[in-house]
């Protein structure tokens, strides 16, 4: 069991990072800390995906002088997927941070509990 974990240590690291990001997202009340936590979870998932595509002792998929045998190159598909993922996670981060600025401008706090309380009061007020 331990040899498998040792062989797949990159995937184990990705799993641990995913949990660290998850805990950061869960535990911190601060909005910006949650954005960082989500980013860590993103990159952990991408690390896991890229390590699946890696094949020992092969080159990166840039064909050199017509040596196109598939045995000499790493699996290019996960790289394509993760490239798309990285750009998407930057876009999501930008939108989240824009929302954080607007929330801060209205409630003057980044602490989620206080924001809930203000929203709660507003709903009470409207009712």
């Amino acid at each position, binding site marked *: 069991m331990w040899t498998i974990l040792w062989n797949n*240590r*990159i995937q184990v*690291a990705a799993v*641990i*990072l995913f949990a*660290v*990001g998850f*805990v*950061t997202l869960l*535990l*911190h009340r*601060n909005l*910006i*800390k949650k*954005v*960082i*936590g989500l*980013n*860590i979870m993103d*990159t*952990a998932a*991408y*690390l896991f995906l*890229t*390590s699946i*595509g*890696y094949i020992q002792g*092969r*080159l*990166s998929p*840039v064909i050199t002088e017509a040596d196109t045998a598939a045995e000499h190159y*790493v699996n290019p598909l*996960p*790289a394509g997927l*993760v*490239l798309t993922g*990285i*750009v998407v*996670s*930057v876009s999501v*981060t*930008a939108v989240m*941070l824009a929302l*954080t*600025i607007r929330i*801060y*401008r209205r409630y*003057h*706090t*980044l*602490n989620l509990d206080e924001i809930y309380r203000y929203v709660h009061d507003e709903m009470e007020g409207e009712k």
Partner: protein
Amino acid sequence: MNVIEIGLLLLIIICGIATCVSKNLMVSMIIFMIYSVFMSVSWAILRAPDLAVTEAAVGAGISSILMFITLKRVHRLREDGSAGETEDEEI
């Protein structure tokens, strides 16, 4: 080769935990920037140079800049006569 890989993985996990544990917002952003630089090095080791360039340019560059600006905007809004939050972690 093996030692670098293990060292890198440990550093990445330590940076991840450090962002979670650190109290100050600015510190956790800087650690996050270091984390994504290490991540882009690990892409390079995993034979995916495309991802290394993109993660370095986009992960360490753009998202960290946006976070720093958000923090700066929040600090400035706080000084502009808003509810006085005292210590940095408070906001």
